[in-house]
């Protein structure tokens, strides 16, 4: 079996490692996906004065708690990167598990929040505001789930001291998911 790596993982015209460059391009396309969704929400919100009343039913404390959880998980992700840069795979894996736990807490809070809202009749079909609310927060939650799964795979390798450069890559993705929430929070919970 050949020990040389495929050319795509080492070749670079930009001076940026290929894996990292690929993650940045993923983020570039995600900006357009989430940006389009959020821009649509903003223009509808500004064009529909009746949405202010609908928005007043979201719970700022749930949103605030989830922002705290994601910011903290981002700290864990950057500490994992820091450990990986120093060649400490076991420590990096532990921080990644902490980040993943943050993602799970985030999803649990969201589940409790959504259950309450649905029980009060604020379902995805209630009106335009709730369409956007569940679509934007739901798409974000799917990114959290995907991030957690990938993070567990990378943590398993990092624990064995393998592919430590990937710790930074999942970190970049996770911080981006955090930034999306940083904008969703004022849009859905603060601007009422």
């Amino acid at each position, binding site marked *: 079996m050949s020990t040389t790596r495929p050319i795509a993982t080492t070749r670079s015209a*930009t001076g940026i490692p290929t894996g990292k460059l690929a993650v940045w391009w993923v983020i570039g396309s995600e900006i357009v996906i989430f940006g389009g969704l959020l*821009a649509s929400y903003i223009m509808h919100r500004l*064009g529909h004065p009746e949405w202010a009343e609908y928005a007043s039913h979201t719970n700022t404390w749930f949103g605030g708690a989830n922002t*705290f959880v994601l910011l903290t998980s981002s*700290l864990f992700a*950057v500490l994992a990167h820091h450990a990986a840069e120093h060649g400490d795979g076991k420590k990096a894996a532990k921080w990644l598990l902490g980040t993943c736990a943050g993602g799970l807490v985030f999803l649990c809070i969201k589940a409790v929040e959504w259950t309450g809202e649905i029980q009060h009749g604020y379902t995805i079909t209630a009106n335009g505001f709730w369409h956007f609310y569940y679509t934007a927060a739901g798409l974000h939650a799917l990114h959290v789930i995907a991030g957690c799964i990938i993070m567990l795979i990378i943590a398993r390798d990092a624990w064995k001291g393998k592919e430590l450069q990937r710790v930074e890559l999942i970190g970049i993705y996770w911080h981006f998911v955090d*930034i999306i929430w940083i*904008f969703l929070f004022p849009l859905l919970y603060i*601007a009422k």
Partner: protein
Amino acid sequence: MAEHQDHADDHGQAFYVKIWAILLVLLILSILGPIVAPHMAFGFLEAWMITMMTAFGIAVVKAYLVAANFMHLNVEKKYISYLLATMLMLMLLFFAGTAPDVMEHKGQNWENVAAEAEIERALEAQGAADAHGEHAEGHEDAAH
């Protein structure tokens, strides 16, 4: 040498914790914004303007802190910043191209009858619900 390395590690970790602490302070400010805004409004500065500044102004600062320090954009090659800026410009182009048709419900040669009817229906329903709420409150007061 090892001692020096350990010291550098602590310094790096302390820096990230400091950024996280600043992010938490900003989070608290953004939550407090709408609560204190009505008390801070004066002159042309209305409460909603203060809420918008504390909500979205702080969101931009938080996003910058995460991107620059956690994603290391401040030391990343400029290529990445240009890539992200291009995507943001595309988003603004999309917004500018479609916003007038969504935010307005009437133009020189067109009218969005469905949107106008929905706004009217919803505002009337909300007004009726408010009036009903006040009416019910009045009854409660009378009962006491």
